[in-house]
């Protein structure tokens, strides 16, 4: 590494390239303040970067190499003339032949692109078919349609086409090269729709829409779409069904991913099944790839002999929805998201819903169910962009449930409906507000619980995603499960059965739970799926005991299914462990985490989102038990895994850093802990911004770490910031706010700034006692700290009352806390000059310290 200057230029550059112009300016203002040389260097790097996205060193040398034939074709005849056209140079080659840049001299002088089709086609019929459509082609006049001028035969008898020369790159390459965000991609795609709509109005069907036929050229900084090759596919397509894409060897030479089901079905039959809706399908596939990062069916997996298999998949297989596909891209998910200026999780969220349904509507297997026209597709995208409801609708259980509810609105309570619809649709459940876990939880545990709740919410998202993925893989299973949920679960809230009562979710769930065993006798996999859904719903209703019952049953069933699906077993084990942890049954939870982890590891070498979530949960459970050494092992792995799966700039990674800090703090390695907490703060700030509870929590950890190391000066501004964040985002009554205020008050007490401490300790006391029972550890903490303030500022009576109350509510076994209180009272009475009481409490200090040293459980 070079000097610090170069390092930070690099760092700033790495961050800046992710931002827009305004963001870059702000970043530079902030990070290069007062360092003009550094700023100049970064600006220069950014300028170079901008200039280079299209030029220098090529966009992707590898891709170019892979696509280009190493050996120039034998009859490479640059300089020769074909008809009225002189060949200038080769532009490229593809499955059909070669494209040249050519010059036309008569009747006008212009540059054109000339495509020579490779030998093996019936030239006469190709030219004849082109002639038949020439009239129609000539009528097309649209800025986004490349003109086709001419067709003919070379001296060797090969057909050729002459068309407008479009100097550009395929739309996918353009979007990735310029790292266009999803909205810009949609806007560009809408130009494509315009072009296709125009052609359709003139009676021209493209038949072979794919990214390499949709070029983008940059005109005065604007990206312009040009759809090329109108009329070509039809002319060279002898079957009307895309058969020319395959050579006589059965090898796929073109790009079959964009072929419609009707084309795939008619291939080889000689039928012409193509109409304008075929183009709509292909548009859908292009849109799919533009927003997702990959086409629905990958061609790489297609072997030469797999032509029939490909046709079958296009005809029969349901394509995964874009959001599902985006989450199953594995290693390239991060890259796909980054190319759209998103984090992988944001990417999935953005696609979920409208965009999923719009794409899937365009790609319906049955042409009659697709958008009727390209402009209808375009209009739905416009609606999505302006946040209006779209025409495309999810054909899901949730949708059916909502229709059901509409029919039976009278007898169904809104909350019940929402919960059931979520259950049926396997949608992510929002996790409710933070609840105090148990009366004996320490203040730290309460904070952990809050983090856990958020963690849980994230885990739910992953889980829901997983459920959707599984559902997509096993449509049959989904059908059966949904049928059960709709008939047995929603049926129980039918007006006639509910008889005007307000059927609660719990009641409905209870009904379903009773029936599930019978409904799925001998179908353990389905029963497990349903029990999992029921268990998770109980969990979200905070009925943990019932949740455990169903989740445990689900786990047992998963173990019994033949053949055993280890992923499913591990998934079920994880779900059960989450609830056990909430019940405080940590040992059981840890055992399950361990099992789930081993199973996962047996499945895959590397890390994936599931495994790292598991590691995180596992480490959190160990932390709660203060098992620092064990936790350290798991957290270290969790950090590695998170870095690999999410990279550093990710909220989940930030949370593992926090856990690393907690481990180190627990081991007394405060300096290292501070380092990890700071890194976590940096990440949270950049991922969530400053106004986010997760940022507040990270800041709070860092602040208290400084406090515990006696670095009060450092702690104060952080704790102040944390309080500000909590006040804004959690509201003035939130217990987390009260806890943060306690910490800040503590810091001020240590610095003997009693006036500064007073408002925070009073407010914290009020918040704690208004929402918690007086013996709750946080409420007792509030008494204790306020007592310290009173004692230090000579308000002895008040201090005495607070300390004594706190003492009497502290359980006898908390020797350390009691020793601490005895010390506080001793000091108080000494200040108060009440020697008798002082000496009595002095004895108690010794008493509790002896008990504590006796090795019994401690309260850290």
């Amino acid at each position, binding site marked *: *590494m070079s000097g610090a200057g*170069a390092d930070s230029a*690099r760092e700033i*550059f*790495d961050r800046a*390239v992710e931002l827009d112009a305004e963001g870059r300016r702000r970043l530079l203002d902030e990070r290069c303040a007062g360092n003009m040389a550094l700023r100049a260097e970064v600006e*220069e*790097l*950014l300028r*170079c*970067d901008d*200039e*280079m996205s*299209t*030029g*220098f*060193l*090529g*966009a*992707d*040398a*590898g*891709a*170019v*190499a*892979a696509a*280009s034939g*190493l*050996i*120039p074709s034998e009859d*490479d005849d*640059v300089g020769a003339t074909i008809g009225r056209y002189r060949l200038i140079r080769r*532009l*490229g*080659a*593809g*499955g*059909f*032949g*070669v*494209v040249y*840049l050519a010059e036309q001299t008569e009747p006008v002088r212009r540059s054109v*692109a000339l*495509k020579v089709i490779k030998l093996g086609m019936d030239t006469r019929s190709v030219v004849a078919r082109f002639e038949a459509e020439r009239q129609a082609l000539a009528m097309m006049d649209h800025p986004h349609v490349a003109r086709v001028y001419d067709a003919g035969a070379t001296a060797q008898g090969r057909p050729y086409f002459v068309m407008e*020369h*479009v100097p*550009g*790159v*395929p739309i996918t390459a353009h979007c990735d090269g310029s790292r266009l965000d999803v909205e810009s991609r949609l806007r560009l795609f809408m130009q494509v729709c315009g072009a296709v709509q125009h052609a359709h109005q003139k009676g021209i069907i493209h038949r072979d829409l794919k990214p*390499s036929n949709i*070029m983008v050229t940059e005109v005065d900084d604007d990206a312009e779409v040009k759809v*090329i090759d109108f009329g070509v596919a039809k002319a060279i397509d002898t079957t009307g069904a895309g058969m020319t894409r395959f050579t006589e060897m059965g090898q796929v030479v073109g790009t079959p991913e964009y072929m419609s089901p009707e084309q795939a079905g008619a291939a080889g039959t000689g039928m012409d099944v193509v109409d304008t809706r075929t183009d709509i399908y292909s548009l859908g596939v292009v849109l799919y790839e533009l927003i997702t990062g990959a086409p629905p069916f990958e061609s790489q997996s297609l072997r030469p002999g797999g032509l029939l298999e490909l046709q079958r998949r296009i005809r029969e297989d349901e394509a995964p929805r874009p959001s599902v596909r985006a989450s199953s891209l594995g*290693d*390239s998910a*991060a*890259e796909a998201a*980054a190319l759209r200026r998103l984090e992988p999780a944001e990417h999935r969220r953005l696609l979920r819903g409208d965009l999923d349904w719009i794409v899937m509507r365009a790609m319906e297997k049955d042409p009659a169910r697709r958008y009727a026209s390209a402009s209808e597709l375009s209009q739905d995208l416009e609606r999505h962009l302006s946040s209006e409801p779209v025409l495309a609708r999810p054909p899901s259980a949730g949708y059916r449930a909502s229709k059901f509810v509409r029919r039976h609105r009278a007898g169904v309570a809104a909350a019940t409906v929402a919960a059931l619809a979520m259950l049926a649709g396997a949608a992510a459940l929002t996790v409710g507000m933070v609840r105090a876990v148990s009366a004996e939880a320490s203040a730290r545990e309460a904070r952990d619980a809050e983090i856990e709740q958020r963690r849980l919410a994230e885990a739910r998202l992953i889980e829901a995603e997983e459920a959707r993925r599984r559902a997509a893989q096993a449509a049959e299973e989904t059908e059966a499960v949904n049928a059960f949920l709709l008939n047995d679960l929603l049926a129980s809230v039918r007006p006639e059965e509910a008889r005007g009562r307000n059927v609660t979710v719990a009641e409905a769930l209870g009904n379903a739970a009773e029936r599930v065993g019978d409904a799925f006798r001998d179908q353990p996999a389905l029963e497990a799926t349903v029990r999992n859904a029921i268990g998770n719903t109980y969990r979200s209703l905070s009925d943990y005991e019932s949740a455990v019952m169903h989740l445990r049953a689900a786990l047992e069933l998963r173990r019994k299914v033949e053949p055993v699906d280890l992923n499913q077993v591990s998934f079920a084990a994880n779900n059960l462990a989450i609830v056990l942890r909430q019940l405080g049954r940590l040992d059981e939870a840890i055992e399950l985490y361990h099992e789930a982890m081993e199973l996962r590891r047996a499945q895959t070498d590397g890390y994936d989102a599931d495994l790292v979530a598991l590691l995180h949960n596992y480490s959190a459970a160990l932390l709660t038990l203060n098992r620092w050494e064990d936790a350290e092992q798991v957290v270290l792995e969790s950090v590695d895994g998170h*870095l*690999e799966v999410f*990279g550093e700039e990710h909220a989940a990674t930030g949370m593992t850093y926090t856990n690393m800090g907690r481990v180190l703090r627990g081991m007394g390695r405060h300096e290292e802990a501070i380092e990890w907490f700071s890194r976590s703060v940096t990440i949270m700030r950049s991922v969530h911004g400053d106004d986010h509870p997760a940022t507040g929590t990270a800041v709070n950890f860092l602040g208290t770490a400084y406090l515990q190391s006696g670095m009060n000066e450092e702690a104060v501004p952080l704790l102040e910031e944390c309080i500000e964040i909590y006040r804004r985002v959690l509201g003035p009554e939130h217990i987390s706010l009260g806890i943060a205020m306690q910490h800040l008050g503590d810091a001020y007490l240590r610095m003997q700034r009693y006036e500064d401490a007073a408002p925070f300790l009073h407010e914290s006391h009020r918040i704690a006692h208004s929402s918690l029972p007086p013996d709750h550890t946080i409420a007792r903490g509030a008494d204790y700290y306020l007592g310290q303030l009173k004692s230090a500022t000579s308000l002895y009576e008040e201090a005495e009352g607070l300390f004594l109350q706190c003492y009497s509510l502290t359980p006898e076994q908390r020797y350390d806390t009691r020793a601490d209180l005895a010390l506080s009272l001793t000091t108080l009475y000494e200040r108060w000059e009440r020697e008798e009481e002082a000496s009595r409490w002095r004895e108690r200090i010794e008493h509790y310290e002896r008990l504590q040293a006796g090795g019994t459980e401690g309260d850290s």
Partner: protein
Amino acid sequence: MSSGEQRVTRILETLRSGDDRAGEELLPLVYDELRALARARLARTPPGNTLQPTALVHEAYMRLIGEEDPGWENRAHFFGAAAQAMRDILVEQARRKATLKRGGGRRAIDLDHAEPAIESPVIDMLALDEALRSLEASEPRAHQVVMLHFFAGLTMEQTAQAVGVSERTAAREWRYARAKLKKELDGGSLPGVGAGEEGEL
């Protein structure tokens, strides 16, 4: 199996057993193969045409390693060596051209040694070589990414695997390296490589 192929296979075997010194033998071997390959290809190519360096690397790979999958680590060794060899060849070619322009060294060029015109990026190879050296010193990983991605023609995914980082990290290294190299080269005149119009049939 050609003798070159046997030797490479043996070297890769040795590498697999953990002996890193075998890697040094790989470079000259790959270098010779690349030059021979370029010459052979060019003999069948009309004058004025050029060969794609990355395509050459891939062909060399096919010839030297063949269908057998040597495992990722060894593939990384191979492409590391190939990238270095390709860079050396391009630099030599550029140096010779520069010498020719200055009118010197005419004697050194005879027909037998007339080097194939491998399509050199439209940049000053000598300056790029220089810039790469300084990049290697300051950001070794970024340098490695450039070598594998640009000179050996690995995709970003393969590059990431070979370097042992996430694809995102590799992409970040690549982006920084590109900007940094361009900046270094911008002192001189830099026409930039046209993206090239790609019309696919």
